[in-house]
């Protein structure tokens, strides 16, 4: 079933056409990837797919629903969740609270019940705390529940951002360069983590990544963009052999690995 679909979306910033005519169809259980050199427009695609930017042309559908004019929080409510290339955690809150914040839109007590702390308040808080703890446990973060988010090691911060995204119970998870700044060991763990999410939750995963080896190992469908244009798409082996890709991307960056900002 298609959870995320974009139909020929484009976006223009003043004179710059940052992304032109991009389409995607992500189903439950898919792992797809977007690759391309620095500044190609990958993050901009994500921003359009999650409602941070409105495409100048074309429409994004989440679970079959047109998201025209919707705000990011509505994309999330419709079943989408994402992480960021530059980690965006709530640094002055604890790890546990970071995850609990992702349950906000599902809380079932009103303002008055909150002020007076009714039984409903306590049972909802308990439910959400338990669910958040269960997720943290699943990803081995329980040791850190009381830490401030910015006191976590870098790799753990990336992991926490993924856990927080999963707390919204998405059907499609979008990861923007999750391996950026990680060492080979951490990348191995990350690959395992993504596979686990895929196997246990059966959701659709769309990943932007610079590390070719990782992408080839994990994705079953790859789109390559350069200067905002989709220059190639297909299975890892197809993409690897495509002369345009070798020219535009692999040729220039093959030996560089993740050098994005």
């Amino acid at each position, binding site marked *: 079933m298609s959870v995320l679909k974009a139909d020929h979306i484009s976006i223009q910033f003043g004179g710059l056409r940052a992304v032109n005519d991009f389409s995607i169809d992500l189903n439950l259980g898919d792992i797809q990837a977007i690759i391309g050199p620095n500044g190609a427009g990958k993050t901009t695609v994500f921003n359009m797919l999650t409602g941070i930017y409105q495409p100048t042309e074309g429409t994004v559908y989440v679970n079959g629903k047109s998201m025209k004019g919707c705000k990011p929080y509505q994309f999330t409510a419709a079943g989408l969740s994402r992480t960021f290339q530059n980690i965006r955690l709530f640094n002055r809150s*604890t790890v546990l*609270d970071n995850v609990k*914040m992702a349950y906000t839109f599902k809380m079932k007590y009103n303002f008055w019940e909150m002020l007076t702390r009714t039984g409903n308040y306590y049972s909802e808080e308990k439910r959400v705390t338990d669910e958040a703890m269960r997720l943290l446990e699943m990803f081995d973060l329980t040791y850190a529940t009381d830490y*401030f988010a910015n006191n976590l090691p870098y790799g753990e911060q990336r992991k926490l951002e993924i856990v927080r995204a999963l707390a919204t119970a998405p059907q499609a998870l979008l990861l923007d360069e999750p391996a950026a700044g990680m060492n080979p060991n951490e990348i191995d763990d990350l690959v395992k983590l993504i596979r686990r999410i895929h196997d246990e939750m059966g959701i659709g995963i769309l990943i932007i990544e610079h590390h070719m080896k990782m992408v080839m190992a994990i994705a079953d469908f790859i789109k390559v963009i350069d200067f905002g244009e989709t220059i190639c798409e297909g299975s890892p082996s197809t993409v690897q052999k495509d002369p345009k890709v070798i020219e535009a991307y692999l040729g220039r960056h093959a030996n560089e690995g993740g050098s994005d900002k």
Partner: protein
Amino acid sequence: MNWLKKNRKFIIIPLIYLLVHVLNQAKILNNYILQVLMLIGINLIMVESLNVLTGMTGQTSLGQAGFMAVGAYVSAIVTSILIPAKNFSSAALISFKIGKIGFQITSIPQNLIFLLGTLAGGVVAAIFGYIIGTPSLKLKGDYLAIVTLGFGEVIRQIIRVTPIVGKSFGMVGIPKLANFFWIYFFAMLTIFICRNFMDSSYGRACMAIRDNEIAADTIGINTARYKVIAFVYSAFIAGISGSMFAHTMVYLHPDTFAYTKSTDYVIYLYAGGVGSISGSILGAAALTALPEILRQISNWRLVIYGLLLVLIILFRPTGLFGGREFSFLGLKTGGIKIFHFSDLWSWIGKKKSVEEAGK
């Protein structure tokens, strides 16, 4: 019994009240000190109100005194219409004794009128919070500061030309309905509803917006909605404080609510510890009392006050309380943030907690 056991940490609240009351009866606390304590309570409510907006939600406000003014004038209008000044005298006071301690309360109808006026002040201030919060949704930082500053000044100028509140001559004949009991009661109530707010999905949503608005949006938080809620809630609390102020001072002048009053509250908030409920209590108490304590050295008063402020901000950039919370509030905001009285020594110097609680 079980209930008592569970809530015994709150025993400090009635104890403080009784202590003040007994000391006052024993003439150890004179009326001047009692007045200062009442002012601390009024300012404490204001700083908590600002803490909801700036400390938790990250929205700058230099117009908090504007909300306070709305609450003060609206409540004063309500009570002075319902209790004309000539009908209000100390005859309305009822005295009684429990053991050796004497108590005095205003009659029940008068107290009800006071509560009604206070509620009206809070509600109208909240409406103003909505009016100013909604169009300011896209504004941040300096721009929001300017808009809220302008709002406060507009309120003051409107009061200056409104006949029923005495224009720029000031409003007189407000019944003296507030007393230490009521101010203490509302200050405690404010602390508790602010704590309940902070430790709920509402407070967490606000703090998420403060720390990273885009991330908050992408985890499903309707940022516009929660910013408006923070504005309305904060304005409501400021309105309550305004009512306490009006019925303590018995006289209101528009210039009392100039922007300097708003900036005072910003200073109290940052000195105590922005984002922390206990820090706001401490900031309000310390900086309200300080100028009074310094009164004996009248000429140097403001110099020393200013110097102390600079020192606080330089050496304790996260505020006097360094982001901690009193343990009796039951807030679990990060392991090291809870304040026990045994910590007393550590926050007097040492930068340790600044690094831990900071950023």
